[in-house]
């Protein structure tokens, strides 16, 4: 196959080389940040749902994600043992519904034996937060009992849709572009799931009663809404979203229980940036956090080499923050939002 040349390789380039620059940007910023943003959005959606209906910041959400992922991985192994697969898609997609069911059962059990008591007591939010720390410990221990603390990769099937070499050969560009199956899958699943959740909240009877309950609990109770049912549905949604987010994150990167505690911070930041209790804001917040994180920790030198004339190219990496500080980005955005607009980007009533 003849290699067509769209652009002169940059080493000989006299003129700025925009196409390579765009591909570079897509490969190292846009694609990873979109996938990461979708994962954060799903996580933040779960946090925000719990916040708006049960009215507390759930510190156990990260470990709920870890548990859901661990359960799914165990089922993946089981399926792999049986030879069941969904090739070229990862087996995890097949195992995901079962993982979600298990996680839902765990969340409902937790609510029955832990949270319900405080709900009936009408305890202040901060007590719920404290309780969720206890639950976090238990989930953490459960996950470790189930699967240990090691790094697990469970991505199988066709790993790439577009490979770097394939892309280079097809386009003749200097810069390669890789598109992983897990990344595309993440975005598709995220779009489907958030659409379904928004439709559910907007159009179904249960969704409407959830909104009513979160808007004004007493009024909702007066008008005959069954609070137990609302809470039940909320936990099922939160647990399912946590499992989906966790599995997609694990497919994209790898599964280690501790990292799921760490992404609690970007998830909280996404929920607050979007206006805590606002489902749409949570999704938007997830993408804002992800894009800022990737853009601020990316070394822009390569990109600038393509678009600037050679004598203007900076000597340094043009990296604003080193990758180790990626969590600082979520925190910075959080601080800015708290200072400038504590209600988040989307104002108004919860939901």
């Amino acid at each position, binding site marked *: 196959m003849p290699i067509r040349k769209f652009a002169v390789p940059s080493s000989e380039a006299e003129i700025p080389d925009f196409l390579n620059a765009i591909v570079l940007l897509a490969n190292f910023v846009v694609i990873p940040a979109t996938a990461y943003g979708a994962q954060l959005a799903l996580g933040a959606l779960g946090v925000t749902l719990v916040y708006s209906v049960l009215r507390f910041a759930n510190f156990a959400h990260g470990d709920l994600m870890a548990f859901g992922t661990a359960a799914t991985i165990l089922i993946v192994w089981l399926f792999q043992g049986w030879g069941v697969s969904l090739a070229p898609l990862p087996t995890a997609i097949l195992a995901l519904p079962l993982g979600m069911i298990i996680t839902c059962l765990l969340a409902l059990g937790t609510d029955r034996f832990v949270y319900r008591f405080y709900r009936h007591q009408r305890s202040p939010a*901060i007590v719920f937060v404290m309780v969720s*720390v206890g639950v*976090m*410990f238990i989930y953490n221990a459960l996950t470790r*009992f189930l699967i240990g603390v090691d790094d697990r990769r469970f991505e199988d099937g066709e790993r790439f849709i577009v490979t770097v070499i394939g892309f280079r050969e097809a386009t003749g560009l200097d810069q390669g572009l890789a598109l992983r199956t897990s990344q595309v899958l993440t975005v598709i699943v995220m779009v489907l799931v958030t659409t379904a959740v928004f439709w559910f909240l907007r159009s179904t009877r249960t969704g409407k009663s959830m909104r009513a309950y979160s808007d004004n609990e007493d009024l909702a109770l007066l008008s005959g809404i069954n609070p137990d049912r609302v809470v039940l549905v909320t936990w099922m949604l939160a647990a399912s979203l946590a499992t989906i987010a966790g599995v997609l994150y694990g497919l994209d990167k790898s599964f280690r229980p501790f990292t799921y*505690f760490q992404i609690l911070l970007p998830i909280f930041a996404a929920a607050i940036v979007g206006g805590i209790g606002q489902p749409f804001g949570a999704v938007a917040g997830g993408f804002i956090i992800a894009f800022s994180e990737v853009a601020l920790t990316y070394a822009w030198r390569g990109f600038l080499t393509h678009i600037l004339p050679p004598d203007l190219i900076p000597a340094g990496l043009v990296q604003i923050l080193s990758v180790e500080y990626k*969590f600082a980005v979520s925190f910075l955005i959080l601080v800015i939002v708290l200072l*400038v607009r504590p209600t988040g980007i989307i104002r108004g009533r919860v939901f």
Partner: protein
Amino acid sequence: MSRIARPLALYAVMASLIVAVGFIQSWTVALSITNLALISAIMTLGVNIQWGYGGLFNAGIVGFAALGGVAAVLVAMPPVTDSWIAGGTNLGLAGLAILGTIGAAVFVRGRTHGRRRTWATLFTILAGYIVMRIFLDPASDAIEAINPSIQGYLGGLGLPVLVAWPVGGLFAAGAAYLVGKVALGLRADYLAIATLGIAEIILAILKNENWLTRGVKNVTGIPRPIPSERTFQTIGWVSELGHSFGLSPAMTAAIANRLGYALLFLLVLGTILWLAERALNSPWGRMMRAIRDNQDAAEAMGKDVTRRHLQVFVLGSAVVGIAGAMLVTLDGQFTPTAYTPLRYTFVIWVMVILGGSGNNWGAVLGGFVVWYTWVMAEPIGNHLAAALADLLPAGWLRSHILDSAPHLRPFLMGMILLLCLRFAPRGLIPERRAPSTRKPEVN
């Protein structure tokens, strides 16, 4: 009467548990547990000041403890002159850049309004940050190149390590002031999330800024305030005293060394406890409780709630910082990777809740009980797993159970926290009720 009898009994039980370790296992182990329990108790006191007095949830204790630990490095380690020569100028310029940025930001904010103000401030800070990096990056490279296997950082001031303890408190207080300024006065859980974030950032800085802390290469050999075990072996009367109890010289020295730390820590704990109790029983303490119990009413009475919260948050964090410096002093080394949120944030919370939030004596007791449990969870977990595994045939499940013994710790901590919140929310030693609601004492 039971107000004194109950705590006394609980403390006696705790003491006998530690003494039991001394008799059964060894006295050095018992003293090591005591030393760490004393430090935990000080941290717990700090958190109790925030939670018990003010109702503030600090989810970043680990960060404040680590800041205290840095103080021990920066105060007590000898300075590395070569590093200062290599990178001092640029570092000074970077510092000036930070000051300049702050000045410029204040100036810009004075001249702009509304939405433009936000953007102008952000832009000024970003520009200042870039200028700072222009100086900091070469400084950091030059410093890290100096004798990297044992130095590669600036060193400290070479002062006595005890000076680091109040300095650690100051560091933590400074960080707490900044976080509190941003997150207090908003919804209660925002502080929790903001502290979670600041802790994550402090830890990231300590792990990665090698010129300051050597990062993951750790700083070892921090000067000790108590003579080392080897020095104690050379002191005649100590060995003789040990001999009269039938102890070998090495054992005597080990005990003397740990006992020295224990006394030092006890002194600090006693002082902080005394101050905390004084504060609690002063008009200030009553005001804090009033704010905690009914914020709106206190506000209506003219109390500046946000300011008081900031005050109590800074004070509590300072105490945690002091404890963090003491911890590094005890270890004699600074290991940034050792600071995990589970161990230093959430376990401290279990201590506060179990001990009795709002009651300082309870908080101290909680520190002891939970630390003891934490230490004992490992042998108990191994025992349990071994006993359980014995019932099973050799195979996958058996080895899995043996492997999962260490995971008993988080499970136990979670159970203690949940059971305590559910069935004894006021803790082992409940908070004393305010005198006005207590029945007048007959007699």
